[in-house]
């Protein structure tokens, strides 16, 4: 079936679209981990929360665009409050306390959403302007999914410029690569980190809103996606934009094509990609300098 | 003369920085060799290549007549290259005795035992106590490494390397960060090690180097500047100009 060009192009576009969602989630997780050595499993909960917010905002106002504008901002605010109120209390206590704390946040957040919204999955309609299909290389493909791909590509471009070409980006990279030196040079890592955390939460929120019309809104959507995102981060390497991009593409394509080629064993494909990557690169394909393997 | 350890055309770069440049050196058995050079001369990288912490980009490392270039740190240690580290690198939660008993157990390949307690091995304990005596820690056998003085931890650091029964002992700045009294103690300790042991020492303390070394190698920008006995090195114009003057101005620097 892959010999059918229409089908192939469709699947490539599907892979791209999924890769972009993974990327939006992975970059925040990866940089937060890279800078603070913080394993934040509740990153996906921000994604889920934002999807529910989008459902409410779009439902009440009738405007998807208002949801797209507001929900990620709310997600960023909630993410940062969460960080200051709770998460930062175990920064020094190691990964295990972080896992326990953030699993607690996942349980708490999921249950809150259940209380507020009930157990049934919700839908967010595709905005009118993006209904229907467009032709890509002669193949009819839903406009909304092309929109997702565009949002991802634009985000990658913006992040690239910010990280590589601006002072803020230099601060972030310094914070990832050598926190101690950066601090002795007078950089307030805590402030830089708060900014990074906010941006990470914003992007997770953005992913939640744009994913909602395609994948639906339900409790548990956070956990199913966070596992793939963790794999992306592992494959790509910690703390680097390039790593998050490469990892997202690999997993996005492996997942989509795995489901076609080996419908029963799509996860096997992902696992193979991860195992291969780690055999040859135990620190991931393109980690930030600090995480490169010695020797 | 027997060569204990030698390198041929050894090279290592990190990106555009060439840390070790075509180093060909032979360390004669039974002598104390010192490696000196200004900060950033590539001493520690060279050491890491000798011990197996790093793999070279090119060239070879030979232990006697055996090529060990492709062997890792642990394999080289088993063949008789033992090292100490510039920063204290001991088992902080164990006592001095436990540190040394464990090192002896690794050396004697007794760690794959599941059914009896490590404490119950009298011979390992004796071996460990003998080493503790050599490094002057007999009075601290039951002190947890974390609570030892800095100098005491440095002594234990050397003790762990000695516990490997090495043919070649690599000491990376054994007196780094030590007080004058502690340095004097370390000098005596190194002097009293058996003459059959081949030693390679990186050291910044010139008095110590001139005092204990039989041969000195000067590294500069990753390559060998010159070699000789302490008298020859002291007399060398080249070394005086490139290094000894600078070292006097910056005696406490670390590479």
């Amino acid at each position, binding site marked *: 079936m892959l010999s059918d060009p229409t089908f192939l192009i469709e699947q490539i576009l599907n892979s791209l679209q999924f890769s972009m969602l993974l990327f939006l989630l992975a970059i925040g997780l990866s940089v937060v981990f890279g800078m603070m050595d913080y394993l934040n499993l509740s990153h996906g909960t921000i994604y889920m929360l934002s999807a529910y917010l989008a459902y409410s905002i779009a439902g009440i106002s009738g405007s998807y665009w208002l949801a797209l504008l507001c929900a990620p901002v709310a997600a960023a605010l909630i993410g940062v409050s969460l960080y200051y109120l709770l998460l930062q209390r175990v920064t020094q206590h190691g990964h295990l306390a972080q896992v326990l704390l953030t699993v607690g946040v996942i349980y708490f957040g999921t249950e809150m959403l259940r209380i507020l919204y009930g157990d049934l999955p919700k839908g967010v309609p595709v905005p009118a302007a993006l209904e229907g299909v467009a032709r890509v290389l002669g193949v009819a493909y839903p406009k909304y999914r092309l929109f997702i791909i565009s949002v991802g590509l634009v985000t990658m471009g913006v992040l690239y410029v910010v990280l590589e070409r601006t002072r803020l980006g230099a601060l972030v990279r310094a914070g990832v690569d050598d926190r101690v030196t950066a601090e002795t040079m007078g950089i307030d890592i805590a402030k830089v980190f708060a900014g990074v955390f906010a941006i990470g939460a914003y992007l997770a929120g953005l992913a939640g809103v744009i994913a909602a019309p395609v994948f639906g809104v339900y409790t548990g959507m956070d956990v199913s996606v966070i596992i793939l995102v963790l794999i992306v981060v*592992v494959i790509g390497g910690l703390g680097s934009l390039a790593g998050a991009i490469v990892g997202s593409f690999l997993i996005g394509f492996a997942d989509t094509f795995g489901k076609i080629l080996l419908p029963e064993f799509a996860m096997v494909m992902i696992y193979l990609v991860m195992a291969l990557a780690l055999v040859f690169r135990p620190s991931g394909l393109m980690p930030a300098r600090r995480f490169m393997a010695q020797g | 003369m027997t060569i204990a350890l030698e390198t041929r055309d050894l090279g290592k770069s990190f990106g555009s920085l060439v840390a070790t440049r075509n180093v060909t050196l032979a360390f004669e058995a039974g002598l104390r060799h010192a490696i000196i050079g200004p900060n950033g001369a590539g001493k520690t990288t060279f050491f890491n290549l000798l011990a197996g912490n790093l793999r070279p980009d090119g060239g070879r490392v030979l232990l006697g007549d055996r090529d060990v270039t492709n062997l890792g740190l*642990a394999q080289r240690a088993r063949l008789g290259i033992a090292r100490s580290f510039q920063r204290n690198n001991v088992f902080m939660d164990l006592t001095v005795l436990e540190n040394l008993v464990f090192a002896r*157990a690794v050396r004697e390949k007794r760690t794959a035992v599941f059914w009896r307690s490590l404490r119950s091995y009298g011979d390992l304990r004796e071996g460990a106590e003998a080493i503790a005596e050599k490094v002057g820690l007999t009075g601290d056998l039951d002190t947890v490494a974390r609570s030892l003085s800095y100098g005491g931890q440095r002594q234990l650091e050397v003790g762990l390397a000695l516990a490997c029964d090495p043919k070649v002992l690599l000491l990376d700045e054994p007196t780094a960060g030590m007080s004058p009294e502690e340095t004097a103690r370390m000098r005596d300790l190194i002097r009293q090690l058996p003459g059959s042991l081949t030693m390679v020492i990186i050291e910044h303390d010139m008095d110590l180097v001139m005092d204990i070394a039989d041969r000195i190698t000067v590294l500069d920008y990753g390559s060998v500047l010159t070699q000789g006995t302490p008298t020859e090195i002291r007399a060398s114009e080249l070394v005086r100009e490139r290094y000894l003057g600078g070292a006097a101005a910056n005696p406490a620097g670390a590479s």
Partner: protein
Amino acid sequence: MASRVFLRRVIGAGLLAAALAGCMLASYFTQDLIAEAAILAVFALSLDFLATCGLVSFGHAGLLGVGAYAFGGLTVLAGYSPGTALAAAVLGGLIVAMAAGVFAVRTTGAFFIMVTLAMAEMFFSWVFRDRTFKGADGMGGVPRLDLSAIGVDLNDASTFAIFVVLLCAAIWLALEFLIVSPFGRTLDAIRQNAGRVSALGGSVFAYRLAAFTISGGIAAFAGAFKVQHTNFLSPDLAGWLASGDVLIAVVIGGIGTLVGGILGAAILVFLKDFLSSHFGHWYLFLGAIFMMVAIGLPRGIVGWVLELRGKRP
């Protein structure tokens, strides 16, 4: 410092006594919970033993699942006796752990956490879809060991609970001895300073792989008893929530203390039962309790108690 080891054993003996008293005196439902806690405790011991060498897995339920599915599959589908199936389950756990470990133990820290999570999710998604084991529906009718030859009926709730409590105690004692053996001390040395172990000539990879393999065997053993307890095989056994549960049990109890895993397992099982029978949205409370423990007792309960006795392990 002997007092810390002594304290650990006192806590262990106290838990054992309480569990056995409960098995004999308490109600059927309490006996059932004790059995559940004892099996989770065996599972927690496997995870905490692995932590001796500094590795923390977030995919241990995958290995538990291997044991559970090997036992359930061999007894229900292939008609083997429970005894044979138990041996095969443990063997399966050892083999799968060794094969997975070859890749996994090359990584450490949070990387290891993520890699093991991904591997376990692999196994989960396989048994979730595969119709051989009835996929997501699960499969009932898993038998218990037949010990009628020695006059023990494991289908009796009290007897089964006593049996698994004693198994748990036996594994705990075996591990207490194992961690002071040369092998166990090597694992501890690797946890403290893996680089130094290499420099002394020890193979960090080989010892970590051995620890992961042994841990996998114990986890699979726990899995075989988990399905005997419920008589039911379900993919959830191997899911991330189960990996999270056991990790949380170990963290609450105190990682690196062995007995902490047992205490944590008991607390988790009874806490969940208490909350779920008294409150509607009880995950709200469970989540809040996790957060409080993480912030207030980051080294866990036993870790905190031992810390009061001094800094030495």
